[in-house]
């Protein structure tokens, strides 16, 4: 663990800005810094303007938002569940969203509706997981371990549903579903960026507001109760907020694995321990990781693209292995 220093924040923000700039500049058609500035001040050629403003900028913005949301969501869940292996997708969010999206594709719903159905699917899965956990727990008491297992069970059930749904559909639908399940921020629109942006802003503000309460929850349920926290309500609140935040990213960009798991570990490796600091660190690192991954995804073998979810995992795994080695 590195001792925490104030300049880390500035370095982090600068690094994020640099990665975002590269994300806009690099691609099949490289854009020079001069062209980039020209495009933003709308004095560029129509072609450059179109690449920057309608293709690359929303793409980078969406990637950053997805990273922020998954990172902060993961940090909240790990602290609330007191489990460094917790991540948003463990709670059935990914499975539920996938069921929603696949169902939408099969029903032939317009692609504009996929995110909505994915979000509904994720929401239903989370509610189901909480419901299962409450039913299983003693006298309506929600045990965090039961909650985690309920999420896994709901996720497994969702996977089964997806396989059944995909068993009898045309190959094109399968390809669409698969592409979506591998995650992508390509071909995004400013509309998607706007709604996810509003959603992430609200969600992250909520998590930041309740962060001191989450700090208390890391002590365990009895100690948290002794410090005046309504444990049941606080746990459910954190759980729901982070799950819905992750669900929104799944709706906007499909499944992008590993970010919610690995980003909080990266933030803590910088010596961040207070939940508000961890959240801020996760926002910066999460955004950086997803923007950089998307950049890699499209520059490695142009003009074709690698699945974003695979790249985030490839970037995240080595870090995670190093962390594991450090744990005794």
């Amino acid at each position, binding site marked *: 663990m590195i001792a925490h220093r104030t300049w880390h924040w500035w370095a982090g923000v600068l690094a994020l800005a640099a990665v975002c700039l590269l994300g806009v500049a690099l691609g099949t058609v490289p854009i020079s810094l001069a062209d980039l500035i020209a495009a933003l001040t709308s004095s560029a050629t129509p072609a450059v303007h179109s690449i920057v403003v309608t293709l690359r900028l929303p793409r980078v913005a969406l990637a950053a938002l997805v990273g922020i949301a998954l990172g902060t969501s993961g940090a909240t869940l790990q*602290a609330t569940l*007191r*489990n*460094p292996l917790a991540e948003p997708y463990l709670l059935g969010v990914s499975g539920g969203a996938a069921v929603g999206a696949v169902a939408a594709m099969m029903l032939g719903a317009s692609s504009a509706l996929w995110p909505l159905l994915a979000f509904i699917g994720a929401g239903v899965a989370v509610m189901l997981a909480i419901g299962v956990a409450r039913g299983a727990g*003693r006298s309506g008491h929600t045990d965090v371990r039961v909650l985690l297992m309920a999420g896994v069970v709901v996720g497994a059930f969702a996977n089964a549903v997806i396989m059944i749904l995909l068993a009898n559909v045309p190959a094109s639908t399968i390809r669409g579903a698969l592409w979506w399940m591998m995650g992508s921020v390509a071909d995004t629109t400013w509309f998607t960026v706007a709604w996810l942006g509003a959603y992430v802003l609200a969600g992250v503000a909520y998590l930041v*507001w*309740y*962060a*001191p*309460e989450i*700090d*208390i929850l*890391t*002590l*365990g*349920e*009895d*100690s948290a*109760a*002794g*410090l*005046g*926290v*309504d444990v049941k309500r606080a746990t459910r609140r954190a759980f729901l907020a982070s799950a819905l935040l992750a669900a929104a990213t799944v709706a906007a960009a499909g499944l992008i694995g590993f970010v919610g798991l690995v980003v909080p570990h990266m933030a*803590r490796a910088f010596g961040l*321990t*207070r939940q508000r600091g961890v959240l801020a660190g996760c926002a910066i690192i999460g955004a950086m990781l997803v923007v950089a991954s998307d950049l890699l995804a499209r520059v490695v073998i142009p003009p074709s693209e690698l699945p974003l979810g695979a790249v985030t995992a490839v970037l995240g795994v080595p870090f995670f292995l190093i962390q594991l080695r450090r744990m005794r």
Partner: protein
Amino acid sequence: MIEYQDVTIAYDPDKEPVVTSVSLRAERGSVTAVVGPNGSGKSTLVRALLGRVPLLSGRILIDGVDVDVIGRRELARRCAVVTQREDTTFARETSEYIALGRFPSTGSWGAAASGDSEAVIAAAKRARVEHLLGRMTDELSGGEWQRVRIARALAQGGEALVLDEPTSFLDVGHEMQIFQLAAALAEAGSAVLLVSHQLNLVARFATSMVLLHKGSVVATGSPDTVMRGELLERVYDWPLVVTRDPAVNAPMLVPLRRTI
């Protein structure tokens, strides 16, 4: 002051209560010890105070006010509980850990209020852990960790302190440190309610004792009234004698061997 009035608790309403009509009182300026065999209901009493198990009947009062009436936050400001176990998945700096005790006073947004760092240092001093303030919680020894936890409880600012088996995993030196600390805090005016298995140390440091057996109070009063051989023999179901310790002449239990 912490007061249990005729408290009955059952985890399952259809089954036998685990605590039956327990009344006890931990006054300011004294150490009140709750003792008894495993499963006698000691920790259930603590969990009830935390609001983690509902009361079937009776009430728990802090300074004469029902804990259900004051609300959790206010309760946490008046009475701090050092629970038996605590989760240590995420380590933090000791000063930051102790500052968590300020949460009941500052809530979600005022976490950085100016008086708070002073409160943290004052609490660390009272628990004699100022020298540990710069360390990480996962680098502390068992004894240091327990004293840091007590410091966090003191940072809550109340005049009532509950310690649930605070010396379970400690060697005799660290155990003595905790008991002396509890006695010193009581002397300074706090009401200390101490749940412990260490009968002999309790007999030395506690002002009064409450002996629980199968969820009921079977004896209460000064260590001399509670530490009676035939009573303890029956409650702990083991042959023993009660003598006097040579150092301070407090009652002392010596377990005997039994042919098995």
